């Protein structure tokens, strides 16, 4: 991966126009909505959650939360992960 790092060092980036205009995505109110917003929205817009509804069962949402932490490195505490999982199952589950 040395070559990738070198390429990164040489790759310029300009702070100009091409930014997507993200609109607010409202989640259903309920216990844990704040944790979802604070944790999940750091890396992706919350439309990902609504788009993937309402077809995941409890195991399906648990697997998504586990994937975000385990595979994608989301820095979410086990306590918050539980609250987030419960919220998703209750409001966006099957």
């Amino acid at each position, binding site marked *: 991966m040395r070559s990738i790092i070198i390429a990164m060092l040489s790759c310029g980036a300009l702070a100009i126009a091409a*930014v997507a205009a993200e609109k607010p995505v409202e989640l259903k109110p309920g216990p844990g909505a704040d944790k979802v917003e604070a944790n999940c929205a750091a890396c992706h817009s919350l439309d990902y959650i609504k788009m993937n509804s309402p077809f995941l069962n409890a195991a399906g949402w648990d697997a998504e939360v586990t994937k975000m932490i385990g595979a994608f490195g989301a820095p979410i505490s086990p306590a918050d992960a539980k609250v987030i999982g419960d919220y998703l199952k209750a409001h966006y589950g099957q």
Partner: protein
Amino acid sequence: MITRRSLLEAAGTTALLAGAGQLSQPLAAKADEALSLSPQLPEGTRAEAVLDTLPGKKPLIKLSYRPPNYETPVELLRGAITPNDAFFVRYHLSDIPEVNPDTWRLSVGGDGANGEIRLSLNELKQLPATEVAAVCQCSGNRRGLFEPHVPGVEWGYGAMGCARWKGARLKDVLDRAGLKADALEIVVAGTDGGITDKTPKFVKSIPVWKAIEDTTIVAYEMNGAPLPHWNGFPARIIVPGWTATYWMKHVTSISAATKPFDGFWMKSAYRIPLGRFPVVARFASQETAANTPITEMVINSLMTSHGNGASVKAGGKVTVGGIAWDAGYGISAVDISTDGGSTWTAATLGEDLGRFAFRAFSHAVAMPTKGSYKVMARATNKIGQSQTPALIQNPAGYHHNVVQTLTLVAA
């Protein structure tokens, strides 16, 4: 530990978070009619999808703002070439720097190369140029139509497009560094990345045999213009016939490897069960006993002349048309059925823009009386493959090529 972000900062760059700006803008108006979303999509997808305009693009169907995932409305897929401003946008990760072409460099090396070189954009353009018309299609195009639904970006029909891509052959680029005989895979990486340095950077590998085909290129032009930012400016890898996961955008690193690349996006993502799909191209160095990386696209077609449920005039013929494509074996026929698949009639094929391109087709369907007509289209290629009549299930929702049925209402 040096993170990607700190590297960017050290290099004096500013990483933009796609979607971070303009949060105060009003909600986009819903326009379900204009979207003509498939009723097969998840309810939540149908509720959230809106027409939204990224800088430099026409209004596309927004599935997610950040990272941006926007698909092309079907009515913008009527021609065999998709305009740049209508081309779909797909990112895995949210940190998407805008690249300065003057300071951009392409690093070419790796343990499977004799040395390491760095090319500027002008140096890349000095290599012999070639152009190929090719379909770029997300592996998960039509994932949203899976029943039962599988999680992911819930694409309808429009996570694809066809463009004329111009650039240098990847093999010529590799030759500049000198490819060793024991090189196994070509590893490609770009500038976009995750928000935390724990997120696996989007890095892919391509088997050497595919990487050195004449049609695999490092493209810097799309339909005669520089690549749009959202489609990989200033250069991306073009792997005709293969799904878009290999078409690395904003490419900055090409690395020849003598061992199978084991990054997350190869080892864990973009895998299909072994032996389930009728694909020819294999990525042997990445296969396991259970699964294999997705490789070439499966044969497919899409009627684009009418939206589902469109009203047409009864008492004559209605010309239905669309596009067909495969992995490059060549479309030999598109057949139309109006009796639920009992009998089929050959459609007229349009201009052949090359074996990797969309092939247009059209057919005049008799609609003598008022009522509902169900029109099916099924493509066949020169090696005898055709679209599946029933969905081939797989956990990640790839390779949806079920024969489409379009309902037209004659009145």
